């Protein structure tokens, strides 16, 4: 250790923070509740801040007072809102003094008296921290912090855990987080190994351990190879051949040990050849042999403990693992060998942060962080580092000096949609771009192409703010940088998907205070569409029942063509704002559609009404007013209750819950059917809890889930490309579902075997709910 501290003091003088510090330690002005985890080489700092940021709100005008044709439907205002955010920063111990100085200089909040500390280095740096920050260091148990942190990331970050596959197109296979994260086994490989069984938030037990761990690799490796640094040892190992040092089964048998099924290449005795061989071994070969020996041993113990406790979810962490592809590979190999694939080795994207997250949570108990849902902020988080073999570990350690994770406290608590057939196997996204190189290339290009337009609209949305242009450029720079990162590290934020690309863009826009670039466009379109509503309803009522059912579906689909999120459409809309509803209908593909279950749907409509339909709506304007509302109106007339689920905060031109409330009021004022339904609570508006153009049915507002349950919802309608094609296309529900969208992207249309404006009309009935034709009694509606 003395050698390390020497390195530290000599480095602390000449090293300075290479990035602008205010981009690292963000929001320090109001930071509170600090926690720090000091490991052998890295320090992780956590704090809590409140971020003032702009949100777009709409407020209805009082229309009874004056109601002129020219007045807009509602007013848009920008308000300041306070958002709770967690900041986690990771840096080399060498920077600790500089960082503490910086924090001291910028820390304004005087309420903070204590800093929670964990990790082996907490003791060593205690005095320095107390002197610099004038905060009392309060030590927390390392293992408790680790578990608390682990539970937190597993619960709040989808795609936190992954399986490592060395030779696959994408090395990371992200796992869907099981709705119930417990029980699991955590194998923490620090200098030694601890095996912890976690059964609930507060129940965990160290069921075992081993003294052969990262310290053994490092210590023995240093003795054998005279190589001092852990990273260098791993690098040596990745270049070596263990077969010259290890005694293999074939060295003893001349081949395989067939009767036991032991192949010839299996290691019979680690370092078994080094007792007798007269030759010198290369450092690389010895390092490799050592790495195999230790990884296999840990893997074997992990399997024995997993079997004893009957657990299949086994997470690995600790400095031995921490993002090192070499160790992830050998551990994975070992687990596969010993369990014959029954247990998978799982790794965590934010493994390095677990201790500090846990320490932070210990100190923040009065804020009840575990009562909320949190979301990873893609704008402020660095994402997972590349493990590309050409970036050697040393370079990585030096260049990736500062790593950040930011998590926003979500206003709503998020839970599964109760109607998912199997929550544990539900995957929202249709295409995993990290595994599909062609699709990845296209979509990254597509989002880059669209950036100009997004910037332009962002500026246009804030005409009264002269610095908007400057901010918009910062946004452009940030998002472009994210896209470049993702091009090289598609796995940086979990599986790369169209959804994650869209969400990242929303996060970046919010970051630069463009909470709702489409607010004015949405307002204009809503206004325009409302004027046409009564006429549209009237013309529908003139049709026969059967004609009307088809017209309603076509209307819904045509309305969905109005989507600024899709490039092909935004081009048309931008050049021709008069692009009308009728024109959109003409654009639609004629039946049979690309996916066409309309006949089955019609047949179903001949049957008894649904109890309650949950409708995930999409765009503002024509889509919601002329497409969705008439459709909803028909459902209500049939005797079906309707729950309209819309976004909690803005995303593209999607209608927000806030906007939808005003629209519903206005429509109710015009339409007695809607009015009575609202009054009688047969038409309910709920928030989805999301602010994404896509839809993750495993992270929905808890209130929504409650309503769905109470009303015995038996039909789920999902509308639009983002929610029904990019996501949920393959989602299986336990009740009937209708997925409707117009494909407004020619590449995607091509992929799905259709063409631009092809229609997807997917009506699905779960197998066990399918009525037999015999007891199907048709009811002719009036």
């Amino acid at each position, binding site marked *: 250790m003395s050698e390390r501290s020497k390195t530290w003091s000599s480095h602390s003088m000449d090293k300075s923070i290479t990035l602008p510090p205010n981009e690292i330690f963000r929001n320090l002005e109001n930071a509170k509740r600090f926690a720090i985890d000091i490991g052998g080489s890295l320090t992780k700092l956590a704090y809590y801040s409140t971020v003032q940021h702009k949100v777009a709100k709409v407020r209805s005008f009082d229309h009874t007072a004056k109601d002129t044709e020219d007045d807009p439907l509602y007013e848009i205002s920008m308000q300041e809102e306070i958002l709770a955010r967690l900041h986690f920063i990771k840096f080399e111990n060498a920077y600790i003094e500089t960082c503490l100085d910086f924090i001291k200089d910028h820390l304004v909040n005087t309420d903070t008296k204590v800093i929670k500390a964990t990790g082996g280095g907490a003791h060593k740096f205690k005095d320095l921290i107390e002197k610099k920050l004038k905060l009392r260091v309060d030590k927390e148990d390392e*293992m408790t912090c680790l578990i608390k942190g682990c539970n937190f990331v597993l619960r709040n970050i989808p795609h936190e855990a992954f399986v490592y596959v060395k030779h696959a197109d994408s090395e990371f296979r992200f796992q869907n987080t099981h709705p119930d994260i417990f029980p699991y086994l955590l194998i923490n490989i620090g200098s030694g190994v601890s095996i912890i069984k976690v059964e609930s938030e507060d129940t965990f037990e160290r069921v075992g351990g081993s003294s*052969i761990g990262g310290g053994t690799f490092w*210590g023995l490796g240093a*003795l054998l190879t005279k190589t001092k640094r852990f990273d260098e040892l791993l690098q040596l190992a990745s270049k070596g051949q263990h077969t010259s040092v290890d005694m293999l089964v074939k060295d*003893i048998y001349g081949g395989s040990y067939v009767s036991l099924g032991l192949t010839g290449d299996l290691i019979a005795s680690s370092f078994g050849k080094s007792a*007798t061989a007269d030759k010198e071994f290369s450092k690389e070969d010895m390092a490799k042999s050592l790495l195999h020996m230790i990884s296999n041993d840990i893997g074997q113990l992990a399997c024995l403990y997993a079997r004893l406790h009957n657990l299949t979810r086994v997470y690995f962490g600790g400095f031995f693992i921490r993002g090192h592809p070499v160790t992830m590979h050998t551990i994975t190999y070992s687990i596969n060998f010993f369990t014959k694939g029954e247990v998978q080795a799982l790794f965590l994207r934010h493994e390095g942060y677990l201790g500090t997250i846990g320490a932070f949570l210990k100190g923040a108990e009065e804020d009840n962080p575990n009562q909320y849902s949190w979301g990873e902020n893609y704008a402020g988080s660095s994402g997972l580092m590349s493990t590309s073999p050409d970036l050697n570990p040393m370079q990585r350690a030096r260049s990736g000096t500062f790593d950040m994770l930011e998590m926003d406290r979500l206003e709503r608590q998020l839970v599964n949609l109760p109607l998912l057939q199997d929550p544990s196997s539900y995957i929202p996204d249709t295409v995993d771009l990290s595994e599909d190189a062609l699709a990845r290339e296209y979509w990254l290009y597509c989002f880059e192409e669209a950036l100009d337009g997004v910037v332009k609209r962002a500026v246009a949305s804030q005409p009264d703010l002269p610095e908007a242009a400057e901010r918009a450029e910062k946004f452009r720079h940030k998002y472009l940088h994210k896209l470049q990162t993702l091009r090289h590290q598609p796995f940086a934020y979990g599986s790369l998907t169209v959804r994650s690309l869209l969400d990242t863009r929303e996060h970046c826009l919010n970051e630069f205070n463009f909470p709702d670039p489409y607010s004015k466009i949405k307002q204009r379109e809503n206004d325009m569409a409302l004027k046409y509503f009564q006429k549209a309803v009237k013309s529908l009522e003139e049709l026969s029942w059967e004609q009307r059912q088809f017209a309603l579906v076509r209307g819904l689909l045509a309305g969905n063509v109005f989507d600024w999120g899709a490039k092909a459409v935004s081009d048309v809309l931008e050049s021709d704002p008069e692009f009308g509803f009728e024109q959109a209908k003409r654009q639609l593909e004629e039946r049979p559609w690309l996916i066409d279950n309309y006949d089955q749907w019609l047949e179903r409509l001949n049957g008894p009404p649904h109890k309650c339909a949950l409708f995930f709506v999409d765009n503002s304007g024509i889509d919601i007013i002329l497409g969705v509302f008439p459709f909803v109106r028909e459902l209500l007339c049939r005797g079906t209750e309707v729950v309209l689920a819309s976004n909690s905060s803005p995303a593209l031109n999607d209608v927000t819950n806030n906007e939808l409330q005003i629209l519903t009021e206005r429509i109710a004022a015009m339409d007695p059917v809607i009015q009575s339904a609202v009054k009688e609570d047969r038409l309910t508006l709920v928030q989805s809890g999301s602010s994404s153009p896509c839809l993750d049915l495993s992270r929905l507002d808890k209130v929504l889930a409650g309503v769905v349950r109470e009303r015995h919802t038996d039909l789920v309608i999902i509308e639009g490309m983002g929610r029904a094609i990019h996501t949920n296309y393959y989602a299986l529900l336990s009740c009937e579902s209708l997925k409707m969208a117009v494909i407004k992207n020619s590449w995607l249309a091509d992929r799905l075997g259709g063409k631009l404006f092809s229609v997807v009309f997917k009506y699905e009935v779960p197998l066990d709910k399918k009525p037999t034709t015999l007891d199907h009694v048709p009811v002719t509606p009036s």
Partner: protein
Amino acid sequence: NHVVTKKTFPWFGMDIGGTLVKLVYFEPKDITAEEEQEEVENLKSIRRYLTSNTAYGKTGVRDVHLELKNLTMCGRTGNLHFIRFPTQAMHRFIQMGSDKNFSSLHTTLCATGGGAYKFENDFRTMADLELLKLDELDCLIHGLLYVDSVRFNGHPECFYFENPSDTQNSVKTPCSLADPFPMLLVNIGSGVSILAVYSKDYYKRVTGTSLGGGTFLGLCCLLTGCETFEEALDMASRGDSSNVDKLVRDIYGGDYERFSLQGSAVASSFGHMMSKQKRDSVSKEDLARAMLVTITNNIGSIARMCAVNEKIERVVFVGNFLRINTVSTKLLAYAMDFWSKGQLKALFLEHEGYFGAVGAFLELLKSSEEP
């Protein structure tokens, strides 16, 4: 009943492992004058060579203290000798067989261990000898049960440690392996095999580990420059592993109470060696001791987990890693007792590494019983 005696001498059983070749030789003590006269010269010379020496060449050794006296087998009475030499000398051994015209004796050479397969062709081409190849785990179990049944010259073959929780004062205590099943059999050679044995012929290999005797010796050689197992063990006996290993108290200042870990428990094997200063001041003896403790504890830990998973309370440790290695035997006895809170019992056998060879030898006699 002299049918069986027609099985021609010499009687051997051989176990060719990764590091050592184990050879058992039956020396008949009831040779009649008539027989002696008929005995061909090279058979006589083999007998004389093996029984009058205790060392063969530079590396062959006869473990005189293990000799089983006055055994009666297939109607013959004699002594069973236990001989070992490094597998590296295998070719010299085969050459000697050729020089002594061993093939003219028309005996069956029963061999087990991986080397039975690896060297089969060399035996054939170099010495015109055919091996009867036998499975090493079958031989191990048969040999073990046999030696235990005939006892060690009137004493029990098996022993355990009384008072295992105190390794300084634990006492080696002979015992009987009567009613041995089920047992977990941990064979520590170059590598380790762990078997769950339910009867003489019903067993399964539970698992194995590559961290075995070969690892101890190999790493010791690399770290200390020693050349033999004896040398490595001698150094280990004089070393102190706490200069090499990081203990719980080195990290937590004392016990880690949250998880009831004693301060004296090893937290990280070779953990102190992360520091250059400590690397520079460490002695070879300390390194050898740490290596021995590391490997032994790891085997103990895996064996214990297997015992729990297989629900077996008796853990029998064999293999040549345990030869002259009281540090390891006492440590294993301690580990089984301590970590299982007295539930598991570690048992050891005097003929540690020779059971495979004995099993092969028994197969020779069995094959001779066939008409």
